[in-house]
């Protein structure tokens, strides 16, 4: 049997909009993944540390504060500096198209904006994480 995909759902920044993060966390868990939810108000450093400690296959960053161009690159850099650049990073939130392009260039594997069904996110992670 294939091992379970391990996903850290992370809320960087100061906003308290955790509705989406919780829905995604639960949908991924219901789809058979191991989900670790960091809770609110995490710094990029805390998120990198959690991803490494939990040996995550993927990190899902939920961000609705408009600070994504500041905070997401710091998470990507942090993972790389710690030799964890094989961790797949996906972002969910209110991300304008121009910013989404830029984030993809920097290494974000998937971006999901409001209205994306949870099934799409589940399928994306199942496709992106190799589970032998």
């Amino acid at each position, binding site marked *: 049997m294939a091992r379970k995909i391990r996903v850290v759902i992370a809320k960087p920044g*100061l906003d308290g909009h*955790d509705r989406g993060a919780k829905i995604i966390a639960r949908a991924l868990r219901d789809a058979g993944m191991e989900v670790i939810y960091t809770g609110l108000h995490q710094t990029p450093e805390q998120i990198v540390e959690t991803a490494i400690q939990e040996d995550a296959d993927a990190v899902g960053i939920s961000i609705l504060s408009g600070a994504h161009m500041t905070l997401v690159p710091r998470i990507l850099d942090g993972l790389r500096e710690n030799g964890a650049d094989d961790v797949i990073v996906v972002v969910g939130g*209110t991300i304008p198209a121009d910013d989404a392009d830029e984030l993809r260039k920097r290494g974000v594997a998937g971006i999901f904006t409001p209205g994306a069904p949870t099934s799409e996110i589940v399928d994306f992670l199942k496709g992106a994480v190799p589970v032998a």
Partner: protein
Amino acid sequence: MATTEDPSAEQTATDEWRAGLYEATPEREGEAFSTISGVQNEPLYTPHNVEVDYERDLGYPGVHPFTRGVYPSMYRGRLWTMRQFAGFGTAAETNARFRYLLEHGQTGLSTAFDMPTLMGYDSDNPRSLGEVGREGVAVDSLDDMETLFAGIPLGEVSTSMTINSPAAMLLAFYACVGEQQGVPLDRLRGTVQTDILKEYIAQKEWIFPPEPSMRLVVDMIEWCAQEMPLMHPVSISGYHIREAGSTAAQELAFTLADGFAYVDACVERGLDVDDFAPRLSFFFNAHLDFFEEIAKYRAARRIWARELRDRYGAKNPRSWLMRFHAQTAGVSLTAQQPEVNLIRTALEALAAVLGGTQSLHTNSFDEALALPTENAVRLALRTQQVIAHETGVVNTIDPLGGSYYVEHLTNELERQAYDYFDRIERLGGVVEAIKENFFQREIAEASFRYQAEVEAKQRIVVGVNRYQIEAEPELEILKIDPALEERQIARVQALRARRDSAAVESALARLQADATEGRNLMPPILDAAGAYVTMGEMCDALREVWGVWRETPVF
């Protein structure tokens, strides 16, 4: 309408209609026939399946239990206040937006603060990086507040401030600006949100643990009752609870439970309920399920009036009044085909008006994408003006009162609210229920259920899971200049360099001493504000005394 004596006697007539005629035609399949909150609807409400005692349950506008409205003349006397929430960038930019709105006929101001301000961090705190001025205006000190209200006569406007954990500090800044303009404290009008309980429940912008936070709220209520009698020191808010995914009944129940918790805390302090209850105000969501929303507002007024009079023994009729602000549901806005949001917002606003709101914010159609442009805000304001002046709905008070369906829903929401009050009571009250994650779990459950219904297409969201278009045209959105963060950081650092640092030190020492020794904190906070102590410095001083709150997240 049926009275209490004959609920079932005539039931058969409606049942006969249902079995004989209604059920002869099959119902549509797919979409649920329930409210957006999951309340099952009958196909028809008649005198046979709704119980109302007119005098006891409805009464007259301006008369207990105020189901039909808090004021005798409602919108025939005065329209609701059109109050658009605004704030972005630095104080100077938001000041310009305030003036724009006042020029276009807005009748009250409402301030959105940025995330660092909401969390009690100054703009130059490392935690603030990337968030300064993004989702609201950055206000670090009295210096920023002076700019925010420059040229706006505070004696003539009423100002709402959406600020909770550091509410006392922002109220103090506002009081100081009033003083500089020569407006005495007892002439300043407005509302400070200050509702910390809903922060733990839903909005999640907290600093301190619940107990010292509640003490600070009571300090503000006590101080305002004496010094700033025209200010509403708390706006007990269901808005964020609903946005976090609750049902209408949860919004109603949790908000009122929070309200009772504040009343309990003030009574415990030794305040007389009639000295502060008239200044408590409320803030509700205006969501898409039209009749359910109207019923929610009506039930809220009735419950509050009954509990304040009968449970708390308030004698002053003004203590029984639930006055509220409403805002259309941000969460109902879609990023897809955003112009459709204009229609959603108009319908939501109409529900708030038919539900008897005292003031209203209409969201702008582009807000699922970014903060609104000036054009989008003007359209949102115009929506309210059309409702007020063109539709005729303001001519008659509570025009849906007596609708079998609306009365049924009002009763049903009230019943569900009392069920929740019992559950919260059994957990030991609101603060204990927060610590046990009761509210957070209930809301997460409701929001997950709704999402599942949307994905199963039992709920249709136009443009999202039906009627999509392939190529979405690009919309011009408001961009926040990334350079403003640097400017704001420089501004607060320049302030620190030029102010009297001995006065700052002594103000902070007094604040900590009064916090430790249990004195009302408004006087030392006002002194600190006047000495240009920053909001973040005051919060840090209190963090040292009280510690900080951490939530154990559940999903």
